[in-house]
Structures are given as structure tokens and as C-alpha cells.
């Protein structure tokens, strides 16, 4: 949704120009997800801060493992994945996967629980938390999707 805006000088009372004929406010586009918990910087609880650092470090290491010992290994020898009914990922797709993994690693996101090829030259990252499964799907045609499952139900799907 987009109300087209032209921002004016900070400190003036002037309203962001609203083009009233295109109403679809972006008011909520950048809102933080309700319920997401993140400790603020400079967290006063030292124990919590230490746990957060250890957790972030563990995630980073796990991403490194994915990149170094899985994706790069596939890139060096994609034929290891070849089988009946399986087309292994191309080097191009593996490179996309490495870049995506690096981006999520650098953003401090949790590492996936699994990274596997699909039968059609694609690569699938997945992490699970109870009934919730998040997937980063690198299709062979160059598109990458984020998918969110609740149980077996696909509730969100977007192209990155």
C-alpha cells in the first residue's frame, strides 16, 4: 500500500505531501513485527547480554559451517548429488546460496536446521521452531523465495 510521499524539511510543520488519489498507506510496511523480542543495545542485564552474544556467535558459526562445508563443497563437486531423478544445483545456484547465507549470517539471523538440494537444481534452506517452518527456496530459474509454514500450511510466500 502506498501513499506517495515527498518528504519536507525536518522541523517544519509541513506535511509530507500526500497524493490523495493513491491511497494505500505505507503506514505499516516498516512496522516491527508484533511480539518479536529483541534486547535493546546496551542491555542492562549482563547475563542476558552474554547469552545473546553466545547465541549470535553460535548462529554465525553454524552459518559458516553451511557455507564452508556444505555449499562450497557442493560447488567443488556437484556430481556427488547426482542420482536418478535428481539434477544437482548448478554452480550459479550454489553461488546465490552462498551469498544469501552470508547475508543472513551477517544480519545475525538464526542458522538453518537443514540445507538440501531439491530434485531440479534448486537449494532449500529451512529452519524449524515447533510448528513454524521458515524456508528460503532458491529455484533453478533464478528466483528466490521466502516461505513460511505453520504445520503443513503455507501462510506466507514472497519472492526476494
Amino acid at each position, binding site marked *: 500500500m502506498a501513499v506517495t510521499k515527498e518528504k519536507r524539511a525536518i522541523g517544519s510543520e509541513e506535511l509530507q505531501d500526500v497524493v490523495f488519489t493513491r491511497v494505500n498507506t505505507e503506514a505499516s510496511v516498516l*512496522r516491527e513485527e508484533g511480539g518479536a523480542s529483541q534486547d535493546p543495545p546496551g542491555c542492562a542485564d549482563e547475563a542476558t547480554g552474554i547469552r545473546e552474544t553466545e547465541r549470535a556467535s553460535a548462529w554465525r558459526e553454524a552459518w559458516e559451517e553451511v557455507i564452508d562445508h556444505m555449499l562450497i563443497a557442493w560447488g567443488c563437486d556437484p556430481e556427488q548429488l547426482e542420482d536418478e531423478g535428481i539434477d544437482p544445483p548448478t554452480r550459479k545456484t550454489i553461488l546465490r546460496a552462498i551469498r544469501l547465507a552470508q547475508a543472513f549470517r551477517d544480519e545475525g539471523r538464526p542458522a538453518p536446521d537443514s540445507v538440501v538440494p531439491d530434485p531440479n537444481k534448486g537449494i532449500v534452506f529451512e529452519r524449524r521452531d515447533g510448528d513454524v517452518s*521458515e524456508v528460503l527456496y532458491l529455484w533453478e530459474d533464478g528466483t528466490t523465495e521466502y516461505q513460511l509454514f505453520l504445520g503443513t500450511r503455507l501462510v506466507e510466500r514472497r519472492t*526476494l
Partner: protein
Amino acid sequence: MRSDPQEGPLPDYTNPPVVEVILGIQFDRLPGFQNAHLGAFWKTLDATEWPTVSDAPPLEPQFENFAESASWAKFAMHVKLTQDPSSRLQIKNKAGNRMIQAQNSRLLFNWLGQAGGPYPRYRNVREGFVEILETFLAFVGREKLGEFRPNQWEVSYLNHIPRGTVWNTRSDWGFFRPFGGVPTIEGLLQGESFNGEWHFVIPDQRGRLHVAWQHGRRSDPKKQEMIVLTLTARGPLEQNKKDVSAVLAGLDLGHATIVHAFQTFMADEARQYWRSKDGSD
């Protein structure tokens, strides 16, 4: 506290401050849909009734999800790996008071109050949306563009509240009850303005209501000072229900939520100003 916003009659106003209403549906991208199909869809409409088109950038997908452990979701929203060549088409009617917005993954129907004329009421706007949705679905089916699978409904009400109506100074902004006021510290700070948002969950995680408050001046020569108050309700369709009736049920829920919220958020004096009356919408 009302357990279901759709229970009972909805509050009604003779002269509400609403200037625009949008009803919309988000759907899974249709694999066969290209930008050319937007023009082809326009051509299925009555050319006399819908003469004006313009291009716009596509709207990003928006999902109300309640999976707190979805730790990749937030970052995934901001990752852009591919250039999306998709476009959005805006089609206006002859009177300039209705607009259809179409793109692969979204269909929206606007009532545009700035063109003049009173608010036609939700029922009327809904009828217009249904007509366009059915036309669009028929088009998608004929052209074999893929299976139409809606995933989110959305309803927006945009209100203009000019200075001199229910408020004259910032100290009058209490007409909107959630607003705590712009503080002033005598001799030190003088409250000037406020822009902000509130977010609410519709019970049973049926969606969310987002309320945005913007204060400023219009850019036209009058430079009228005003509050732009936008209420947007959005939510997923009921599980395993992906048909038109499920879409309309979502829109009705969104509408009822907005209307009740507006009624509750506004002080009595403001409601009187807009001439609140009990009754159905």
C-alpha cells in the same frame, strides 16, 4: 468488550471525516501473469466508464503473520535479490471517484472522496469491489494465468481532520483518545507536532489494525493544517477457505473493526461533530 466486531449494528456518522476507502485482496503471484495482462484486463472493462489509466510501481507483499519465532521473516522483507519488472495499473472511472489498482498479487478498489460527493457507505464500495473482483477472476480464468489463491484481505479508511473542526490547537488532540498529547515543558520545550502509529491485534489472530497519525499542512495554496488519520485492517483468510466468500468475510471483518475502533477512539465531542448516530452502516 465486544467479542466480535461484526456483532450488532455498526456505528454510523452523517459527515464522517473519511476521504478515501480502499478494499483490497492480496493473492499468490499468478505464474502466467505479465504486465501486458494489465492492459488486457483494462480492455475488458467498459471504456466509457473506466477511461483513465496510469502506471505505478508495484506494491510489496504484506502479510500479517503471528508466528513470533519466524526469525527470518523480518530480514526477508528487506532482502531484494531480483529486480521485479512488475507494474501496477491504476484505472480511474469517468467521475474520478473510483479507482481500480491491479498488479500480479494485488487487486484494490478505491473510493476517492476528493473528487467530491459524500461517502457512499461501505456497502456501495463493497459492491464495486465485488464486481471488479469477479471481472478480474473471469479474466484470469479465460487467459489461463494460473490458480487464483488469495492470502490476505485489507481495508483502509483515510480520514482528514482539519484544524478548526474537532481541534484548534495541539492541546485539543485529545479528541483522539489513544493520543497522550505532545508534551510542553514550560520555559524549556514547546510541543510542536507528532507522527506515529498504533498497532492492534484483532482477537484470535484474525488480523491486525494499524492506525497512523500524521500532522502537517497540505501542499496546496491554502496550506491547511490537518491530521491525516489512517486506519488499516489486514489479515489472513480463514484456513482452507480461499474463495470469494472468504475474501468478503475478511473485508467485512476489517470494516467492522475499523468502524468500531474509530467510534471507541474518538471523544464524544468529536463524534458529535461528525454526527454520530446509532444504526447500521
